[in-house]
Structures are given as structure tokens and as C-alpha cells.
């Protein structure tokens, strides 16, 4: 990191009230460190005290190595796909003059809110022997067959497609903030558009790409749904599914083995974080950073239409098809019937909207959970991000690593770790946090804070320290410096992070499914319940309602933004 940043960063800590520093420190230890440590201790726990028995056993099992190999291939492959797609879409949206960017953006986010089993299901149908791809390939000459999704390739593909919005979201703002003169300078130096991209735009967008890539990487590590759906039929294990197998196993060492594997998975997470640091090593702030929304690449009409066409087809396949398949399932009288007029019915919607009080409670609970966690996350996450960026000491870096781990752990493991930590935070004393909805707040916070931190870090990495200096020589207190200078400047990244926290918290399932208690059911749980009870149609109806609500939310925000812009433009001098 920049030496100058190190030097100037000292001030930050020095002048922020020291209790704040202590508080954050304490919070991080309590919330993030202890569960991870409990897990590590558990992995050393054996009948004869602390020992390396489980590691010995696990590492001597060829299955473990096969699993690690699979995990490595899948996570790497999926991350690469996510980064490529995320960067490409972000580049197109940020720089070209294609139309309907806002709408495109909504469809890019959709895979994020549609439950992953639905996306996966839609994909298997799409790629299946009777699916449209097979039919198209049949027409074509040659013996082409659609990709078998129940395979490593299939898992990589679906996972990559599910996580690219993470990269997109964190990159698009960064791209817009790269001063166009830096790319102009490359162009007058004679480099082609592509070389300029590779040598200037890409490295400068690294804060976003690396952050997004890291999140995609961690999300792929923890993902259970996709490898379970596609991997179990193909007998492909990854760490997350293997850990689950261990945990539900019988015998006293079940948890310990699960914990041991979780520690191994944690290593992956740490390695991912380290690689990300490597990428960020040379990244430096630019002097000014403004979200420049004017297109930089003016495509001719023909080219523009081609790119728009390709992009929309891609989005139709990745977002709209799963959405439609979900919606059509929810409209059918009974699962498995053909989608014909006489089979259509709104009864599932009627049930969800009018008969099931659980569904409404769940929406309320999840909204509340997501909002509160997002809100607190914005403050804590941005604060930690700030310290991390301005004072990248070893301690602060370690904190970053630890905070990332809960996001990478399979939900079940994290939930168990939460039980270990919060049932009796001090042995013999049960404060009643576990067993109330409070535990969900804490668990979500623990799991998703990293999303906020990445969003904020990404933005802060682009703010030159002179912006702050100028505020301070103008006499601004830290409060005003944040409110009037830093927050407005990092807002896009900050909101991206908050947006990710909100959406993931809203539909979270795996952690909640072990930690919820009466009265605290969440959206994810209700969907899961319907699913387990065999009411697929109800679960899809509920999912559709949630997606629709989110879409309505998007539209409202969009309209408000429009209104606000209009007001500003009316009052402003611009025409």
C-alpha cells in the first residue's frame, strides 16, 4: 500500500474518539473472531483432549483430496466466469452508449434474488435433452449435444452465472470513476482500444474486480445449493457438501470432522483474500473521482444493436427464463402439469396472500432483519473499510481476513459456530440471545458484513486522500468530512455493498434454518418449508411474489430518482 497513505492514516485513528476504536475492536473480536476460534478449537477436539487426530484422519482420506480438488476446480472456474461476465457487462453498461441501462441492470441483479434452486432447475430444463438448446443443436449439422449440467463444467457454469452480478455491481461504479483522461493518454500513446483496456482500464478497475471477484469466490466456496443439485447426481463432492455429510453423520466426531473440513475451507478463503491483496497491491487512488455517466465508447447504430441484442439474449437466458419458469410453475394447478389454460390457477397466490399468515410474517421479519442489518452494516462496514484503506496495518488486514471467513463458511457450519458462541457466551450464562430473533441479527451481521466492507473499500480505494485534506484544512470536523465529502464520494460503492447485504439477507436460508425460533421465520425459511412439505407450487408462488416485490422496489427507487433529478434540474442552471 501507499506509503503516504500509511503516514496520513495515522491521524484518522488518532483523532477518532478512542472508545470508538475500542468498540469496533471489541465488536470484531466478539462477533467474528470467537465463532471462528470456536470452530478451530472444535476441529482439534477429540476424545483424548486437543489433538491433530481429525486432521490426520481427514487428510489421509483420499475422498478429502478429491473433494479439495473438485472444490478448487469449481471455485476457480466459477470465479473466472463471474469475473469475465461481470467485467464485460459492467464495461458495456459503464462505457458504451447502449440504451435502457437501468432496465438491463435490474435483469442483471435478478439471478441474485431468484432462489438458486429455481435458477438451477430452469437451467437443467433449458439444457436438458428436451430443452430448447438441444432442439437448436439438433437442427444444426454435426452431432452436437447440450452441455451435461450434472458435471464439473455444469456446476462451474451455473455457479459462475449466479455470482457474476457481484462482480458487475462492484465494478461498474469503479469503471465510471476512472478519469477518462487516463485512457485518453493511453490512446494518444497509440495503444488500441483493447490494449488500453488491458493495460490501463483493467488495472485501474482492480479495486472493483478484485473485490467482486473475492466475493464471487467466497460465495462459490460456501454455495451448497448448486453442487447439491448438480453435483450429487454426478457424485461430485465439494467441501460444502462434504462438510454437510460429515455434520449429519453419527458419532461423537461428526462435528469435529466437519469443523476440520471447515478449517480447510477457511484456508481457501484466506488464500482468496491474499490473492486479492496481491491484485490490489499496485492499485492507487486517482486524484479526482467522479461518477462519469457519459458514454465513452460511441458505438455505431449497427454495432450498438448487435451488442444490445446479444446482451438481452444473455439476460433472457440467465434471468428471464428462470423467472418465467418460476412464475409459470406457480401458476399451475399442480406441479408437473402442462402449462395449458385449463391447468392455470391463482390458488397458490390466494393461499400465500390471504390464507398463510406465516408468509406475511416472514416478509415482515425478513424486511426488518435485512433493513436493520444493512443499516448497521453501512456504518460498521464503512468504518472498518476506511481504517483498512487508510491504515493498512497487519492488524487491520487480519481483521479483514477474519470478517471474510463467515461469508465463505457453509451456512450450516456458521450456524453451528453461532450456537457454540452465543448459547452460553460465558460458560454457564445464557443471556437468551440464542433462541430469540436477536441471534438472527447477529448471524446475518456476521455473515454479510464483508459485502458492505468490500463495497465501501472499493469506493474508498478510489478517493484520493487530498479530498479529505481539503476538507480538513477547511475546518471540517470528522462528522462533516464524512457527511459532506466522503459519503457523497463513496456513495455508489457504499450503496452497492448495502444493496448486496440487503438482498442476500432478505432471502437468506441456510443460517436461519438452524437459528430461527418461533415467530422469527424468514422468507427463505417459508420457501424452504413449502418445498420440504412438497408444496413446490406454493414455494414458487411465494418466490415470485418476493421477486415482484423487489422489482416494484426497484421501480419505486427509479421513479424517486427521476423525480429528484427533475427537481434538481429545474432548480439548477442546466437545461
Amino acid at each position, binding site marked *: 500500500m501507499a506509503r503516504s497513505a500509511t503516514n496520513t492514516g495515522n491521524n484518522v485513528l488518532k483523532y477518532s474518539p478512542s472508545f470508538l476504536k475500542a468498540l469496533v475492536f471489541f465488536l470484531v473480536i466478539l462477533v467474528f473472531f470467537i465463532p471462528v476460534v470456536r470452530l478451530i478449537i472444535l476441529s482439534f477436539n477429540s476424545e483424548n483432549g486437543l489433538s491433530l487426530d481429525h486432521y490426520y484422519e481427514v487428510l489421509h482420506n483420499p475422498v478429502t483430496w478429491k473433494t479439495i480438488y473438485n472444490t478448487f476446480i469449481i471455485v476457480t472456474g466459477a470465479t473466472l466466469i463471474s469475473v469475465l461476465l461481470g467485467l464485460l457487462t459492467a464495461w458495456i453498461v459503464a462505457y458504451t452508449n447502449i440504451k435502457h441501462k437501468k432496465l438491463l441492470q435490474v435483469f442483471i441483479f435478478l439471478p441474485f434474488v431468484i432462489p438458486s434452486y429455481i435458477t438451477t432447475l430452469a437451467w437443467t430444463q433449458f439444457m436438458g435433452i428436451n430443452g430448447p438448446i438441444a432442439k437448436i443443436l439438433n437442427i444444426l449439422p454435426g452431432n452436437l449435444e447440450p452441455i451435461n449440467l450434472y458435471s464439473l463444467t455444469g456446476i462451474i457454469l451455473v455457479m459462475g452465472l449466479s455470482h457474476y452480478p457481484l462482480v458487475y455491481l462492484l465494478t461498474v461504479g469503479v469503471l465510471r470513476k476512472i478519469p477518462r483522461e487516463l485512457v485518453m*493518454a*493511453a490512446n494518444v500513446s*497509440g495503444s488500441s482500444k483493447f490494449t488500453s483496456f488491458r493495460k490501463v482500464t483493467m488495472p485501474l478497475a482492480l479495486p472493483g474486480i478484485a473485490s467482486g471477484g473475492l466475493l464471487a469466490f467466497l460465495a462459490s466456496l460456501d454455495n451448497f445449493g448448486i453442487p447439491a443439485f448438480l453435483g450429487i447426481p454426478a457424485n461430485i463432492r465439494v467441501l460444502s457438501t462434504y462438510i454437510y455429510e460429515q455434520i449429519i453423520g453419527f458419532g461423537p466426531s461428526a462435528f469435529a470432522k466437519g469443523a476440520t473440513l471447515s478449517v480447510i475451507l477457511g484456508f481457501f478463503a484466506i488464500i482468496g483474500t491474499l490473492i486479492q491483496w496481491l491484485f490490489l497491491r499496485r492499485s*492507487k487512488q486517482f486524484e479526482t473521482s467522479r461518477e462519469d455517466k457519459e458514454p465513452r465508447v460511441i458505438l455505431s447504430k449497427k454495432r450498438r444493436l448487435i451488442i444490445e441484442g446479444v446482451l438481452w439474449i444473455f439476460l433472457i437466458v440467465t434471468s428471464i427464463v428462470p423467472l418465467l419458469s418460476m412464475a409459470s410453475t406457480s401458476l399451475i394447478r399442480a406441479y408437473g402439469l402442462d402449462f395449458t389454460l385449463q391447468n392455470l390457477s391463482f390458488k397458490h397466490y390466494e393461499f400465500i396472500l390471504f390464507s398463510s399468515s406465516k408468509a406475511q410474517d416472514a416478509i415482515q421479519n425478513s424486511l426488518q432483519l435485512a433493513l436493520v442489518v444493512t443499516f448497521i452494516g453501512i456504518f460498521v462496514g464503512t468504518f472498518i473499510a476506511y481504517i483498512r484503506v487508510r491504515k493498512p496495518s497487519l492488524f487491520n488486514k487480519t481483521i479483514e481476513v477474519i470478517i471474510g471467513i463467515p461469508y465463505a463458511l457453509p451456512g450450516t457450519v456458521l450456524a453451528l459456530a453461532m450456537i457454540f458462541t452465543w448459547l452460553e457466551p460465558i460458560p454457564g450464562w445464557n443471556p437468551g440471545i440464542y433462541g430469540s430473533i436477536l441471534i438472527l441479527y447477529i448471524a446475518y451481521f456476521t455473515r454479510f458484513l464483508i459485502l458492505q466492507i468490500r463495497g465501501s473499500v472499493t469506493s474508498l480505494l478510489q478517493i484520493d486522500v487530498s479530498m479529505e485534506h481539503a476538507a480538513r484544512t477547511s475546518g471540517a470536523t470528522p462528522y462533516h468530512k464524512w457527511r459532506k465529502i466522503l459519503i457523497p464520494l463513496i456513495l455508489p460503492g457504499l450503496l452497492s455493498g448495502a444493496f448486496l447485504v440487503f438482498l442476500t439477507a432478505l432471502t437468506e436460508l441456510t443460517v436461519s434454518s438452524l437459528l430461527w425460533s418461533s415467530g422469527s421465520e424468514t422468507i427463505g425459511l417459508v420457501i424452504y418449508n413449502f418445498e420440504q412439505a412438497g408444496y413446490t407450487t406454493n414455494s414458487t408462488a411465494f418466490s415470485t411474489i418476493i421477486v415482484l416485490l423487489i422489482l416494484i422496489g426497484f421501480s419505486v427507487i427509479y421513479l424517486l430518482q427521476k423525480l429528484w433529478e427533475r427537481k434538481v434540474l429545474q432548480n439548477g442552471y442546466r437545461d
Partner: protein
Amino acid sequence: MATEIKNISKVFGSTHALNSINLSIKDGEFIAILGPSGCGKTTLLKLLAGFEYPSDGQIFIDQQCVGEKNNSTPPEKRNIGMVFQSFALWPHMDVKDHIKFPLLHHRFLADDLKNNIEKRIEEVLNIVELQSLSKRMPHELSGGQKQRVALARAIAPKPALLLMDEPLSSLDAELRMEMRKEIQSLHRLTGATIVYVTHDQEEALAMADRIVVMNDGQIQQVGTPREIYYQPNTEFVAKFVGKANLIKGEWINECTFRPHDNTDHSLWINIDASPHLRAKNLCPIRPEQFTLSATGSGIEGIIKNVQFQGKEIHYTIDIGSDFITIHEDSQNNNFSVGDLVTIHLKHSEHIAKPTLNYVKSKNS
């Protein structure tokens, strides 16, 4: 590269940054664009580079139209180099990488450079005196060092058209002098066409084959340094380039002027001014053409401001109807603020008429 700018306008929202500019630049020429802050210099340069589209008009390079409304050859396909006013250094590359970049990518790079990239890097580092800083990152450089990196990057590939936007503004006088010489010798050696934006009239006068004086998005005058300096076509040029005082009075004939405020109503003879100024009954006299005395006849006034400038002292004198600026040798008698003084033309009452002929500029 011969460049022809035809009737170019550029509008940002409601701001007219450029207003029907016409200019032709000959192959190998060194053109300085001189004008006050915000007059459109950078905008013009960006149009030449191909970063912006003209709102109207056309740009031809070697007879080829490279820029018009909605159509423009991209910068990387023009044989150019550019120094940005804001430096535009890449935060992730060190000094050496900045210089290497165009050497690796410039499409019109001569073979001898292509084969000796390391040598050329050394050469350019030497020119800008950054040898010892070649491994520094931009944020570890001072303002002037950054500007030199920007300069080095632009000149490294020896482009046919070199666009420079105030490339020396952050450098001290001595270094600036050296860089000027380097740029001039680069110009001589490579025969590149140079378009050099500056707000510093000395720089323009010293370096350029021709100067384009701009104001408010319009060209005021185009001409050689001497033309611009001795025969300003407009009040603006007279003031901006020669810092001239525009004295009110009457023109008796083409070279005789009677200033209004002269106490003894004497005439100034052998004076030269453009028809435009004569028509306005103004006579441009530069600060160093005047001299001050405590007594005697001439224009009377009170000293309002004194600035020590080393070899000179700059006085601002209130003559009632106007303020007049005078530069006196600092070795001469010194006056102080508030002193009552008389202003005379130096060299008795005449000014040597320059030998060159009066050239009417194409654009004004």
C-alpha cells in the same frame, strides 16, 4: 503533419467553448496557442487529438478529414503524442513504465526506436532529468516531477504531431528553460509538427514559429512572435501579449499620435499601431517603453502599486482616466506608492519602427 481546421465550433451544454475557428498548420511547424484561462485552448487541443467531436466544422490532417460532427478518427490511429494539462499519469505504473508504454504501442514508431526501446527510455529520462526516479510511482512524485513524466511520455515515440497542454507550467524557471530548449531541439531533429498550448506569452514568443492568440473561444490573431508582439491587431492582443497600455488620444497620421493626457500636448512620432487600434484612437505602449521621472512634462499620475521583480520594478500608475503599467530597471531611481510622477516615452520621443512589414492576419 499538415493540419487544417475549418470553421470548428464546440459547445458544452450552454457554453460555447470554441466559436468557428479556422487555422491551418503547416507540416513541421511549431504553433503556440496563447490565451487566458478558459478561452478554449484545451478544448481545441482535444479536438485535434480526436477525443472530442466538433459541434460543427471539420478537421483535416494531411488532406484527410479526421474529425467532423459524429465522425472522427480515433486518437490511436493518428500519429500523435500529447501532454495533458492534468498530467493524466497512470497511478499503477512507475515512471519508466509511463515512457515505455508508447514505445510499445505507438503505431507509427520508427524502427530504430522500436529496436532500442531501453536506450530510448534512458534518453528520454535524461532529457526530463528523472533518471534517478525511474522506479517511482506517480503518487511519490512532486508536482513538477509529474509534469515531466507527462512530457516524457508524449515525446518518447517521436510522434509526427505533438500536442502539448501547458507542459511546463509546474516547473521552475531554470528547468523550464532547459525543457524549452529540449522541446525546440526535438522539433528541429524530428521535424514534428508541434501545437503548444500556453498561457505564458514569453514561452510562446520564445519558442513558436507562429502564435495563435485566442480569447473567449475565438482566434484574435495569428502571426509570428514578432508580428504578434509588435503589431497587435486588437486591443486584446496588445494587452495580453505585450501587456501594453492602450493610451487614448488622436492619430495625426499613420505614425504620429497625440495622447490626451499629455500635459504639454506634445506628439509621439514614429509610433506603430494596427489600423484597428488607430481607428479606435488607441495607441499601444508597452510598459518598458515608458519611463518615469519625478518632474518634467508628460503624463502625470500617482503611483498605486510597486512590485519588485529583481531586475525590474513594476509600477502601476493612476493617471485619473486610466491605470498605466510601467516596468523600470530596478537599478534606477525607486518610487514608492503615493508618489506623484510623470510618464514619458523612452528613447526621447521616438520608437524604432520595426523593419518587418505589417502583415494582416487571416483571422481576427
